[in-house]
């Protein structure tokens, strides 16, 4: 039953208030209060949400990177003979590069794949640079210690002969 807006008395459904005489239909309509949610609900919220579909990321192939790193490992082993073992550093770099190249295929997103590829590529390049520097340094060192190519051969043969003699004497 409507109440008078001026005196608050119930109008009893008539057009004029029985207490103060104000016209009921002329009174301004009261807007209902806006709904405000209770910030502290007594009931816990429901967590029964529809699970989102997992997103599947398909990374690209890394066969070339893997091949480059494996070949760096192999060259690091083979070139050990004439780099005094410096090429073993290339072997270690190749092994780490191989691990990162293998992680490309199991990347979960594009950023991870890009990062793994970058690291693997950098390690592979450094491995080949170390190999090249090892060979160049070895040749330069030997040439600098001798009188060019002819002197290098004589120096090498004398070192080899002396080591062989000492090994033979140690064996006796």
């Amino acid at each position, binding site marked *: 039953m409507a109440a008078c807006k001026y005196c608050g008395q119930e109008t009893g459904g008539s057009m004029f208030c029985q207490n103060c005489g104000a016209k009921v239909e002329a009174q301004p309509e009261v807007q209902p209060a806006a709904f405000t949610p209770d910030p502290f609900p007594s009931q816990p919220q429901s967590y029964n949400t529809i699970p989102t579909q997992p997103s599947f990321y398909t990374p690209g*192939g*890394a*066969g*070339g990177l*893997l*091949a480059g790193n*494996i*070949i760096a*490992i*192999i060259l690091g*082993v*083979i*070139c*050990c*003979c*004439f*780099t*005094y*073992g410096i090429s073993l550093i290339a*072997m*270690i770099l190749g*092994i*780490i590069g*191989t*691990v990162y*190249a*293998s*992680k*490309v*295929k*199991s990347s979960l997103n594009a950023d991870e794949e890009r990062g793994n590829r970058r690291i693997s590529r950098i390690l592979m390049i450094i491995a080949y640079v170390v190999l090249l520097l090892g060979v160049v340094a*070895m040749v330069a060192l030997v040439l600098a210690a001798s009188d060019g190519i002819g002197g290098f051969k004589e120096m*090498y*043969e004398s*070192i*080899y002969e002396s*080591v062989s003699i*000492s*090994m033979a004497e140690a064996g006796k």
Partner: protein
Amino acid sequence: MTEERVRKPFIFRNYVRWPLMFCMVAVVLLGLAYIFFIDPEKSPGATMSCFTYACTGLYCPGCGDTRALHALTHGHVIRAFDYNLLFPFIVIILAWYYLVGLTTLLFRRRVMWIPQSIPKWGAIGIGVVVVLFTVMRNIPVWPFSILAP
């Protein structure tokens, strides 16, 4: 309507791939022919010996490779294992990737399978095997002396 021409990768262009293939085949054939006719044990000056062994007296993991390759070119597989236990496996892997590269250049796309990943323990295991092999072949006690070239 004009068709857009797709630019080939640099390495697949004819003026690059044909000389590259020729160089790859020529270098390998010449190298194999040289090792086939030259015996490193009978002509030690004709092939490069190990600097590491010459200066330190220790066998590096690559010692015996040349002799093993000479034995392989003559079909003596067991003798190749005797000179360097790891070398035949190295040759198989290198030969496989060599053929992959050659066929990729020839057909302008990869036609042979190559692995896309290897387990982490596999990669680390390679390093461990090489280090163990190097240490064991320098132990002058049987049975480790079998690994010496």
